[in-house]
């Protein structure tokens, strides 16, 4: 092989590669403009006192110092985690029940899977409105059912305090998202051979024993992944609280994203909003790291 032929071949190959790269160019251009640049700029902006009107001035890490002393922000973070901690178990208990119920080869089982999944495709906005109507204090069907069955003596104003609105929103999310987690768990369950259960029941294991001793350990990694995805989703909660509780009363149900949104787009404190975004990015970065780890080795 001579040097000359190699160069000619490489020249042709290079030309083809340049031409081929045009295929990915549109995606790259928008990615760089509207993702990569903002990704760098969010840190840059967080170092400034940067508001809608007037000039912006460099203030170093002052925004971060403010953030860690900002009671409303810290409370919003706390509330967001409280929400994630409450909604995740609710969601997974129901998702497990559903997954076990539809993991059977009964004729027509597909209809049930479809029904359980249906709320997943409805927008969070619409789901919030649907349940806001159910939870309405004067005309809501929930209060009617509870009072007429004698469980409560007078109507509850569900959305007026965090102690009732948080569980109410979690219940709505459980209805909306259980179908999604059901499918993730179902995929895992179907990876377990029928013979494993046969062997266990021949050995005299009860249904509960089989579930906790065999099924759960075998799909541990899948459950872990579904959990991380669900927690990431909960940490990013926005519209369900913005629409259903408006973050109130007095910011007690304000989520972190909602506070960041208000800071940036209601009060137009872009520099401070960027610093809050950075805090959010770090938290989600840690969660995504776990997701990535779980994805790398889905079997163990």
């Amino acid at each position, binding site marked *: 092989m001579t040097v000359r032929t190699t160069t000619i071949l490489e020249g042709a190959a290079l030309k*083809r590669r340049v031409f081929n790269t045009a295929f990915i160019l549109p995606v*790259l251009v928008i990615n760089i403009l*509207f993702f990569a640049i903002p990704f760098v700029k969010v840190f840059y902006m967080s170092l400034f006192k940067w508001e809608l009107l007037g000039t912006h001035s460099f203030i170093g890490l002052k925004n971060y110092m403010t953030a860690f002393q900002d009671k409303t922000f810290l409370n919003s973070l706390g509330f967001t985690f409280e929400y994630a901690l409450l909604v995740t178990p609710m969601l997974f208990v129901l998702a497990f029940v559903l997954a076990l119920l539809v993991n059977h080869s009964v004729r027509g089982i597909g209809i049930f899977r479809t029904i359980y999944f249906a709320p997943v*495709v409805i927008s969070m906005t619409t789901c919030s409105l649907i349940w806001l109507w159910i939870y309405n204090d004067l005309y809501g069907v929930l209060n009617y059912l509870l009072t007429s069955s004698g469980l409560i003596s007078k109507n509850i104003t569900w959305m007026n305090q965090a102690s009732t609105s948080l569980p109410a929103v979690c219940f709505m999310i459980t209805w909306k998202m259980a179908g999604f987690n059901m499918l993730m768990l179902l995929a895992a369950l179907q990876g377990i051979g029928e013979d494993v259960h046969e062997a266990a029941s021949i050995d005299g294991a009860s249904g509960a024993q089989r579930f906790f001793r065999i099924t759960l350990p075998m799909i541990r990694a899948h459950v872990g992944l579904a959990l991380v995805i669900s927690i990431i989703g909960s940490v990013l909660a926005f519209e369900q609280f913005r629409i*259903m509780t408006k973050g109130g009363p007095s910011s007690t149900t304000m989520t972190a994203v909602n506070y*960041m949104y208000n800071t940036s787009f209601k009060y137009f404190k872009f520099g401070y909003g960027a610093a809050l975004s950075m805090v959010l990015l770090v938290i989600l970065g840690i969660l995504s790291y776990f997701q990535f780890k779980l994805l790398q080795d889905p079997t163990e």
Partner: protein
Amino acid sequence: MTSGANPIRRDGRERGKTGIVAANILLALAFLLPMYWTFISSVKDKGEIYASPPTLFPHTFTWDNYAKLFTAQGGAYLDCFFHSVVIDLSTVLLVAVICVLAGFAFSKLELIGKRFWMTLILFTIMVPFQALMVPLYNTMSGLKLLNSLPCMVLIYATYQSPFCVYMMKNTFDMVPDALKEAAYIDGAGSLTIFFKVYLPLAMPGVVTTIVYTAYTTWNDYLIALTFGGTAWKTFNVAIADLANMSDVLDWGMMTSGSIVSLLPIMALFLGLQKYFIKGMMSGAVK
């Protein structure tokens, strides 16, 4: 060993199956109830919707709430519905074209900096859009694009395309390379190979991309709220505003608005369920 070998256990299984079907029926009804309740509320008249006790089957049946929704404020809600449709279709078109091309290139062609670009795209999937809204707002304002159709379509495309490229790459990966070699030998260029050989085989992936994009865009609230302004207010933002009005809420409009908002996406889901679920599941396990 089949269960037929043991008549007693088989009997137990049959009983178990009946129990499972019964439990499924009960839960399915519970799952459908909120949607049913919203629909029948939306077709009740003004007196009945607020009646106590509430009626499970409406005595009155009227489309008045829908008529009101689409004529209120000089048809403002109809305009917003129209905005949503235009934004959705534009996004689907853009994302489908650029992601199918890019997915094909990443899978089958030699590129400059292939690894680096693919890493950037996979990284984008991991970063939540919410955390980049502030600089993005600044960029869009600098480009004088705020509150415009291109602004929203470009943002949707930017944050949906990484996953769609990834999905299309996987789709093309399943098509054997031998086809490409044969076509190259026949003297076909990259474009010919793409249109004649690969695209027809990748159609299921294309449909999944379209469904994913249509769904994600239609259901968005935050991007539309931040970047759409009033000029491109979407239907979701409009009906959410109904809940934020300080005076007495109009539940007739809110329930009919909810139905109008969920109907297109539910129809798409029921029609293309397979693609819907494929898109969403691989979206989660990205």
